[in-house]
């Protein structure tokens, strides 16, 4: 089976600084790939390149066999196939939930309102927010806004969804409701690229873990083998940091004087 997305010898610079170095990565249709790595390792930049929000500087990137790193690429076309969800949701504050969901389908895809609205309602129901269809973003909790943002992308019927640290800005009690939605998409067989710091979630949802550091992919493996037996010293150190909190000894109880 050929890859849906393929990075080959992919490079990206911010000024002098190279943030992505010779990235080779293939994602098959229906695969769930979770990208892990320390902050600033380039994992978010990788996702943003796939959505055309960052301009790449070398190598090759194909989507369904079509080269994207060419001047002829119509990014508006690509973005309809590649949904993106951001850390801070970025719902359009001046629009109701339904208006947020319909903007793309009606204005970009020129679909019928009746049909697009039916789809939006179905998806809203699926994430448990149908009753919020007329609410405005500021009236919703962070978790609710993020679920709406996911639906906004889904309404475009994308082939791939990109999740860029979508729970990082949320209060802990709202993380679950968002992760459940993503897990549902994974179960449906949607192609997902996920950048996250939720290790347990990564382990549960991923078909494959990609570990990045300093702009390079150091390791790609199945989640079980990555979490139990990481191949590189870097990955071991990275995982140790996350297990540190769990392994903290209990602070001895102190009497208040």
């Amino acid at each position: 089976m050929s890859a849906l997305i393929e990075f080959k010898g992919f490079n990206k610079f911010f000024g002098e600084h190279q943030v992505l170095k010779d990235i080779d990565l293939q994602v098959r249709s229906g695969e769930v790939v979770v990208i892990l790595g320390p902050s600033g390792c380039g994992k978010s930049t990788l996702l943003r390149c796939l959505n055309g929000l960052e301009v790449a500087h070398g190598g090759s990137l194909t989507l369904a066999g079509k080269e994207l790193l060419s001047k002829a690429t119509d990014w508006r076309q690509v973005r309809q196939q590649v949904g993106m969800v951001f850390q801070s949701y970025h719902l359009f504050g001046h629009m109701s939930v339904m208006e947020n969901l319909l903007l793309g389908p009606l204005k970009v895809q020129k679909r019928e309102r009746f049909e697009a609205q039916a789809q939006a309602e179905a998806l809203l129901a699926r994430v448990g927010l149908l009753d919020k269809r007329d609410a405005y973003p500021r009236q919703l909790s962070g978790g609710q806004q993020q679920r709406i943002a996911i639906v906004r992308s889904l309404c475009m019927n994308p082939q791939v969804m990109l999740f860029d640290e979508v729970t990082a800005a949320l209060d802990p009690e709202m993380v679950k409701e968002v992760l459940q939605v993503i897990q549902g998409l994974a179960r449906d067989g949607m192609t997902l690229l996920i950048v996250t710091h939720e290790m347990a979630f990564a382990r549960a949802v991923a078909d494959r873990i990609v570990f990045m550091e300093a702009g390079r992919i150091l390791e790609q493996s199945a989640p079980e083998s990555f979490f139990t037996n990481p191949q590189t010293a870097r990955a071991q150190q990275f995982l140790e940091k996350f297990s540190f909190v769990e392994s903290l000894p209990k602070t001895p109880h102190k009497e208040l004087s």
Partner: protein
Amino acid sequence: MASSGLELLLVSLPQLAQGAAQTLSISALGIAFSTLGGVLYGVLATLGKRSVNLVLRVYLELFRAIPVLVWLYLLFFGLPIFFAVSIPSFWCAVLVLSLWGASEVGEVVRGALHSLPRGQREAGLSIGLDGWQLYGHVLLPQALKRMTPPTINIYTRIIKTSSLAVLIGVVDVIKVGQQIIERTYESVLIYGALFLFFFFICYPLSAASRALERRWTHA
């Protein structure tokens, strides 16, 4: 004198109204063109194109550095000499107010667009919006609240500044007033009336601007 003054004002009303129409036409046209030009300026200034920004910057700084009255004289006397075109003083005033106003409104629009979270632009792009749709549906509507109060303030400045048109020979409300004074010597009455004329146009606008600002920024 009170009754004769009132009588004089009443008698002069049709004449003053004609001048007022000139003044208000200049202001209204200046406001309309400033708004259109200002939005264009604001959009262009947020595209992130270095060359465009440079051109806009030069335009802005020229209109900030050279006083409006000097611009009026430069175009009124200069256009016939430099470009062999002579435009009526009325249109010269409209042109200068529009160019100046557009730079001021433009900076407000730029600032308002700039203050939006960067993610709004990216979220719009990521669902495939084109540039027009991005600005028309996402960015400008959200910038509207922030830019409206200061823009209304610029409108009052345009109205006040339109008074300078009399100095390049427009027969506006001030000129008409001066003609009446030449006949009647009622300078206190006429200038007092002109003072109030501008006040009663500008004050409601200033008050509206302040009320909107309070409602929208402290909500």
